[in-house]
């Protein structure tokens, strides 16, 4: 994506205005509209798909497996596949690292424990079918939906297997399966996976969810993590215009980081509420197109 010098300077001048004027007239805290669908893959425990108006699309599938807890380093494993990029490319491994790191640190995987010996292990597979802007937010919102709608089969055997060694057995009836959220509720905790919010820094403005044109003129990009109704670490900065050299790219003023945390705290909750509202509305009709 190359912009002509005139386009670039027009866009930059518009974005640094106060209040900022974005090309699609979004407010600085406004995300692009999404179209989402959950639980449509028959072969996985949880699935979700998000599409954007510009044709970006991401599908996430969550699968669970019973493992011997002591033999596993992590009870969550993520894989990211971006169409058009090699799996070992920098771009894909960065996305994969970000997502894995986020979930391994902030996902209370103790709750996945079945018995003292056995546990569930979650495999989160993300496919980005097409994307224009940096896809980390897209991936994290889709995996939020997928994790929230993941159902795990009902355990019928004893939870205490310290004396008698036995393999966990599950109810044959899939209708008995419980959403992951129920495992948490029993322990008095709300289940809410963490998400990433991408922000662009230009002039002294911070803009949510920059589009691909906006990314080209940003002075810096910030990735903020939102979990349990507040911004947490990791907070990272990076050049979001990955496929071209961004001549505007500069260092980051520390006040921008503070402001990004404030904005994340203020508006992140709305994103979570919108995602939760969608899950509640989503019925089981199979229309995914």
């Amino acid at each position, binding site marked *: 994506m190359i912009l*002509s010098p005139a386009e670039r300077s027009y866009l930059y001048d518009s974005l640094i205005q106060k209040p900022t004027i974005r090309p699609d007239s979004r407010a600085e805290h406004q995300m692009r509209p999404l179209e989402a669908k959950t639980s449509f893959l028959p072969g996985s425990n949880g699935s979700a798909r998000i599409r954007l108006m510009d044709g970006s699309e991401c599908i996430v599938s969550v699968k669970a497996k019973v493992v011997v807890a002591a033999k596993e380093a992590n009870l969550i494993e993520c894989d990211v596949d971006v169409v058009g990029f090699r799996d070992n490319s920098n771009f894909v491994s960065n996305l994969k690292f970000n997502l894995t790191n986020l979930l391994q640190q902030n996902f209370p995987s103790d709750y996945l424990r079945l018995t003292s010996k056995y546990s569930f292990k979650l495999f989160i597979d993300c496919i980005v079918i097409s994307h224009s802007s940096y896809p980390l937010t897209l991936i994290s919102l889709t995996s939020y939906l997928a994790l929230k709608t993941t159902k795990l089969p009902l355990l019928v055997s004893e939870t205490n297997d310290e004396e008698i060694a036995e393999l966990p057995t599950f109810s044959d009836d899939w209708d008995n399966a419980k959403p992951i959220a129920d495992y948490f509720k029993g322990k008095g905790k709300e289940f809410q996976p963490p998400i990433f919010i991408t922000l662009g820094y230009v002039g002294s403005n911070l803009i949510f969810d920059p589009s691909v044109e906006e990314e080209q003129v940003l002075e810096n990009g910030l990735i903020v993590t939102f979990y349990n109704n507040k911004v947490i670490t990791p907070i990272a900065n990076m050049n979001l215009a990955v496929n071209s050299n961004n001549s505007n790219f500069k260092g980051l003023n520390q006040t921008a980081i503070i402001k990004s945390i404030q904005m994340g705290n203020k508006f992140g909750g709305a994103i979570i509420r919108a995602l939760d509202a969608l899950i509640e509305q989503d019925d089981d009709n199979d229309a995914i197109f």
Partner: protein
Amino acid sequence: MNVSDVISITRPTPATIDSDVDMSDDESTQVKLSIVTPGEMVTDDPVWMKGHGTYFLEDKTYSSVAGNISRVNRLLSVIPLKGRYQPETGDHIIGRITEVGNKRWKVDIGCKQDAILMLGSVNLPGGVLRRKSESDELQMRNFLKEGDLLNAEVQTIFNNGIASLHTRSLKYGKLRNGIFLRVPSNLIVKSKNHSYDLPGNVSVILGINGYIWLSKTTNSSHNKNMTVNSNANKINASGDPSYVPGAGSVAITRLEEESSWEIYSDKNDPNITNSVRSNITRYNNVIKALAYGDLGITEQRIIMGYEASMAFSNVGSMIDKDAMESICQDVINNEKMRG
């Protein structure tokens, strides 16, 4: 704070399949009428010649695209409903330079092959009319470089389908002071004129290839008419003996005065007000809404959509699906009322 101010999430609308479609194939010996889909048999009569958009298997002709059947004598072709832009001579288009080559630029105009802009088909700075020399060849990047946007006219189509462009008029050339967007090319209705001044001090160029340029209205576009008028006045007042045709008048193209290096400058107008900038974004959203509703894009519809968009105090909410649908509905209703 309202959740919809931050993000809007919708569910996909299920595709409605009309089950009443008559699937019977009794008239398969004749050529079917109207619309066909890819892989659908058009005819099993081998006398037809196979044209564009068709393929031939075991004495039967099938459609390879979704579109209308067209028959010219014995030639059978399918004209696609949607697809890449197909250039025609005389089209006013917008393109982006992709490559600077030997005496030519390659230009992306959204068709199958990149178009060509020959060094000989552009105006030189200063408007000097002469053969292009080797020194012009060496400074081609000073005129146009990779990424630059320009509007141009299709001069000819070569045998291999590549379009050749020219910018030999002051209304063509490099684009400044605005933003670019693209819509499917089939939505642009061909007309005599493709650049318009819209209310709110905004100009639009609707390239026939579906590339659209929204910018601040510059004064020169008004002067153009003025110049022509003043010339016409002089000619009309031919009672004046001092008037020699061509002498006192400004040259009709005003090439010398206007095409200094400025025509290839990358500098935007420094005085673009915030209201013009927000009008441009509003038009941007209106055009995107029209494209979302699959409505043909014309000057009138853009203006009607702009007026309908005034109902949205917060222009940012216009990017939601519902808002775009309501704008399209408003435009359609408005057209119905006007008849």
